[in-house]
């Protein structure tokens, strides 16, 4: 079970032009490897705008999450791989077989819509047995296998119900059971957890994990939510400006986003404007809250204006003592806390520097600072990028 996509390009509704000359990051891993050089040359000069140069492969039982903002073409990518939408260029291989020109029913690729699409005139068991019925499998055997999948997804007691009698989470599970009953080589999931309330979200997320382990199918999941991707995916690909902007394991990508746009898409970093300067200790990032030595930064450029991306757990806020003397580093500038908004695990702190500019940082929700406090900020690890 594997999926290989090379140089895929397609048009989609509210298309954005892929920026010419913009390189795409291809951090290869063993399981997920770019199977060849970039194939920009395959795309005709007058190819329609949309996505282009999409190249990746997914092995069986792996799950690739495709992250992108709304309108970035995530769903179009899935629909193109499923054969539901035409492509402008590129190649799609399933288990080594070129399926690019095949109709959807011959690809062994099952596409699951965001809202589960069950056939309303068929009972749950008949829905799940549908892919077996169209393959000409005897009704008794089809029923047995369908029941088996319903049981694996813990909805076998719903077998005789009609789709209209199911709750949202049950519909998702039944749709998933039906998809798996088709024994696809590739399973495409279009924002399966979007628009679900938290309890159902967990429930469907668990079902997807079961599906991934039990089916052995290569899975591709599109989402705009990093949490969804982290919950299910073994690898993450990001889309931006009509191109693939990153491809890596979740850990690697979170530790080292390859560009500012990817860091922004991941949505877990605070952005601090500053500049890179040369000091005796090497290249250092200087911002309104102080400096970050080279040992604590990963810079993609040498000197000049820069943006530091820092995760919440790498931001440390230290209150000034009563006399106004900064505790950790007397030379570091003092910032004033002017706003605080607490989330479940993080706090969004707004700081004001001496010049009156506001700076937003994320930190752990346990941070002991209040509005009006003078603070010193220490950044433990920062990724430095050129500003847009």
């Amino acid at each position, binding site marked *: 079970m594997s999926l290989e996509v090379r140089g895929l390009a397609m048009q989609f509704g509210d298309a954005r032009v892929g920026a010419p000359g913009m390189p795409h990051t291809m951090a290869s891993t063993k399981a997920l490897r770019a199977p060849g050089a970039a194939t920009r040359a395959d795309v005709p000069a007058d190819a329609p705008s949309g996505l282009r140069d999409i190249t990746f492969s997914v092995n069986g039982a792996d799950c690739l999450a495709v992250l992108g903002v709304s309108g970035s073409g995530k769903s179009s990518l899935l629909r193109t791989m*499923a*054969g*539901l939408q035409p492509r402008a260029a590129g190649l799609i291989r399933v288990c080594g077989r070129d399926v690019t020109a095949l*109709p*959807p*029913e011959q*690809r062994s*690729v*099952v*596409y699951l*819509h965001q*809202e589960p*699409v069950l*056939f*309303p*005139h068929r009972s749950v068991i008949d829905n799940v047995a*549908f*892919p077996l*019925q*169209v*393959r000409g499998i005897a009704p008794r055997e089809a029923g047995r296998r369908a029941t088996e999948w319903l049981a694996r997804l813990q909805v076998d007691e719903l077998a005789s119900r*009609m789709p*209209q009698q199911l709750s949202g989470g049950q519909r998702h599970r039944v749709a998933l059971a*039906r*998809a798996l009953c*088709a024994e696809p080589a590739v399973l495409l999931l279009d924002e399966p957890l979007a628009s679900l309330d938290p309890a159902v979200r967990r429930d469907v997320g668990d079902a997807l994990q079961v599906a991934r382990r039990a089916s052995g199918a290569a899975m591709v999941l599109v989402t705009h939510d990093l949490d969804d991707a982290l919950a299910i995916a073994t690898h993450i690909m990001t889309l931006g400006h009509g191109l693939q902007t990153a491809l890596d394991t979740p850990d690697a990508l979170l530790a080292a986003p390859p560009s500012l746009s990817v860091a922004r898409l991941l949505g877990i970093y605070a952005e601090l404007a500053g500049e890179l300067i040369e000091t005796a200790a090497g290249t250092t990032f200087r911002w309104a809250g102080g400096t970050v030595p080279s040992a604590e930064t990963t810079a993609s450029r040498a000197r000049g204006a820069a943006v530091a991306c820092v995760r919440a757990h790498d931001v440390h806020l230290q209150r000034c003592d009563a006399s106004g003397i900064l505790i950790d580093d007397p030379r570091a500038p003092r910032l004033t806390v002017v706003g605080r908004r607490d989330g479940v695990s993080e706090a969004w702190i707004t700081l004001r520097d001496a010049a009156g500019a506001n700076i937003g940082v994320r930190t752990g929700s346990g941070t002991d600072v209040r509005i009006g406090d003078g603070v010193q900020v220490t950044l433990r690890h920062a990724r430095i990028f050129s500003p847009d």
Partner: protein
Amino acid sequence: MSRGRTRVGRGIMLAALILFATAPLLLLLVTSLARGWFHPQVVPAAVDVRAWGELFTDAARRGALVNSLVLGVATACIATLLALPLGRAAALGTKGVRRIVALLAFGAVAMPPVALGIGLQLTVLTMGLGGSLRGVLFAHLVPAVGYLTLVFLGVFTQWDSHLEEAAATLGATGRERWTLVLLPLLRRPIADALALGFLVSWAQVALTLLVGGGAVRTLPLDVLAMLQSGQDQRAAAGALALTIPALVVLGAARVAARNTTAVVA
């Protein structure tokens, strides 16, 4: 206004509605059984079922009834077969295509029957089908296809195309998508369309007269002829007979649709 007065007012309105709906039918029924019932007689001189019997025993009348049934069934089936893919193609097509198809379909429905009949008469004569059952069938199909195309255009405009996509990626071929997904879900609109197609043909007078040229006799034409020649009892029996298949067809369409999951209509 008090609740009691509202209830009385509602009762009066309902009674008036029932009276308006049933009075003409009751009068027709009495007339169809009354022999020699002339003004100012309050009750008919004699009562018999001769006019009803003639509907089935008189060869000419039976022929007209059979013609009406054949035309109705053929129009219903052919118009449904044509309108379903036409409405679907229009609904799934571009906005321009949808507008053109809707305009043409509406034109066929909205055009005065006499104007449409004259135009069709010339067409049918050119085709060499003037005065034939096939020619009349062709003429009946024009408004019927128009009506049904509008019906299916509405159905497919609200159609969830994801159902077919899901079926396709689950391995269903184009034919299987039609037989296992589309047609079962379209049972109700198809039943409605068959009923509507039948009724459009069944009640047709102007087109039958103009295109059939009097050579093709149908029940509505017979009823008109009897009415014009003063055969009130026979005309009343024929007029009532005209309503029976209409009621049967509508009832059958409802029954056929009862067990259907209404996802589109």
